């Protein structure tokens, strides 16, 4: 039997807007993945520790305060430092379109903004698993 796909849904930064993160976590769980949700106010360091400890395949970052350009790339960097760059990072929240190319360049493989249907996220996950 294939190993179940594990996803960490994490909230870096200080904002408490967890409606989106919790929805995604629950919807991904309903879609058959194993999902861990960190809760709010996580530092990039603690997210990376959890991701490695929990042996996840994906990390989904949610942020609505505007600190994504600082904090999302930091998670990718720290994963690399810990030899865990096989963990795939994606993100979402209130992210202006013009910031997306920068985030992708920094290794956030996909950015899902407000109103994205869950299917787009599961399609991304499935496609990424094929690679």
């Amino acid at each position: 039997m294939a190993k179940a796909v594990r996803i960490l849904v994490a909230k870096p930064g200080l904002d408490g807007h967890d409606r989106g993160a919790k929805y995604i976590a629950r919807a991904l769980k309903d879609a058959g993945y194993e999902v861990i949700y960190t809760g709010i106010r996580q530092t990039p360091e603690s997210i990376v520790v959890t991701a490695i400890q929990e042996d996840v395949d994906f990390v989904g970052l949610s942020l609505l305060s505007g600190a994504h350009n600082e904090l999302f790339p930091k998670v990718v960097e720290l994963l690399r430092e810990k030899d865990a760059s096989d963990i795939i990072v994606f993100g979402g929240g209130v992210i202006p379109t013009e910031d997306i190319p920068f985030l992708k360049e920094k290794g956030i493989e996909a950015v899902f903004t407000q109103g994205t249907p869950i299917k787009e996220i599961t399609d991304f996950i499935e496609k990424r698993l094929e690679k």
Partner: protein
Amino acid sequence: MSEYKTINEKKADWEESTLKKVLDRFPEQQEEFVTGSGHPVERLYLPSGISEEEYIEKIGFPGEYPYTRGVQPTMYRGRFWTMRQYAGFGTAEESNQRYKYLLEQGQTGLSIAFDLPTQIGYDSDDSMSEGEVGKVGVAIDSLKDMEILFEGIPLDKVSTSMTINAPAAVLLAMYIAVAEKQGVTRDKLRGTIQNDILKEYIARGTYIFPPAPSMRLINNIFEFCSKEVPKWNTISISGYHIREAGSTAVQEIAFTIADGIEYVRNAIGVGLDVDSFAGRLSFFFNAHNDLLEEVAKYRAARRIWARVMKEKFNAKKEKSMMMRFHTQTGGSTLTAQQPDNNIVRVTIQTLAAVLGGTQSLHTNSRDEALALPSQESVMIALRTQQIVANESGVTSTIDPLAGSYYIEALTDRIASEAWDYIEKIETMGGMVKAIEKGYVQKEIQDSAYRYQRDVEDGNRIVVGVNKFTVEEEPPKGLLKVDPSLRTVQVEKLARVKGERDNVAVTASLKALKKGAETEDENLMPLILDAVKKYATLGEISGILREVFGEFQESIVL
């Protein structure tokens, strides 16, 4: 003489003849119609046959118990609501400019947005503040920043609302200190601190300390203000964020009132007289797109609160029973797609708040699903309020939707369902217990999940998102906060620390620590003293963290 038929008999006839004929040929668009919160809506509402006695008991007159029709006897015929745009970003200097602009545009009150480090009690140079300084509001580290923030704004002339919770005592102390430097005495200050920690645990997330010491700080503020700052609203018990987290309209008012009950019970528990503080309690609600459900919600909330204060807490003063509230239009209803459509949504929500009898209102800007609002968008949002106030005519009579069969039925239904929730939470031992069990969070999450599923399945239409979509160019002209701002703020903080009397700061923090370790000392005077010595927000919160510990979220999925 024609044969007399009751309304119900007539209704049965109508259903059999007129209605059936049409339904057979043209079925309705949906099998079931529901409100924005998902509650069933009937095809047609009819006179309820309310007696005069019931009218007086449940609906009554404006400015009189149970305040269903409003808290003032003349409502907007006397004075419009306070138009208060929530604003703040970057440094105190930039925010000061925005406040002056808003006041010039006819805004009648200030509403301060603080950045997240400020809201959670971290200075800008703290490692936890990385990426967040000045992002969602203004960064305040010490009294110095607060002096700049209100430079040239006479604090005896404006009323100021501050969205600050866990460190509310510190920011209030800073506000008092700035006022005194301007020569304005405490008794003249008007405004509000949000100071509502329970909804932070439930929905908003900017808590610091565990419930018990947090409730103590709130009691300290109630007591201090009742004596020293009598015109200050000491708390804004907020349903806004509960709704933003995805609750229904019923849950919004039920959980907010249950929070209110907990605050009142706690304050009475430490010996405060209910009528000494209850008149300064204020509320804060959301306004969503289902216009009529929202109007009924506000009416029901006033009715329930009046009853709670009178029957449960034996309040005697009328002011103690009046639910005065601020409203903000619903942030989560805004779409990033076709953002100009948000102007229309905000207009509907403004009407809801006004038809529901709000005391003050913030209207969101069209671009807030994308970024902080631009100056132009903020002006449109403010103009929306001014148009509703001056041109729509809905302000000319009090509670104009009263007596609508639907509105009255909906008001009754919302009140009764909210009451069931309130009683359930009381049986669980009150709101703190209900939060610790994760009950409230779970109820909200289930509603949020249902809503989002409905949108994804297309059972609920969101224009521009899952229907009537278009290909769009990325929006231009969004407000960006300069990322170098943290450096500027950190340098300013270092200067303050270099110039202040550090011996005096250490002494004041020591005194605060000692006070916090006792259970019965009011911490407000000690905090005020530390603030005046330019002790920073992070230092003061840090001392309290040492004594009180920090709250740990229990994750409910």
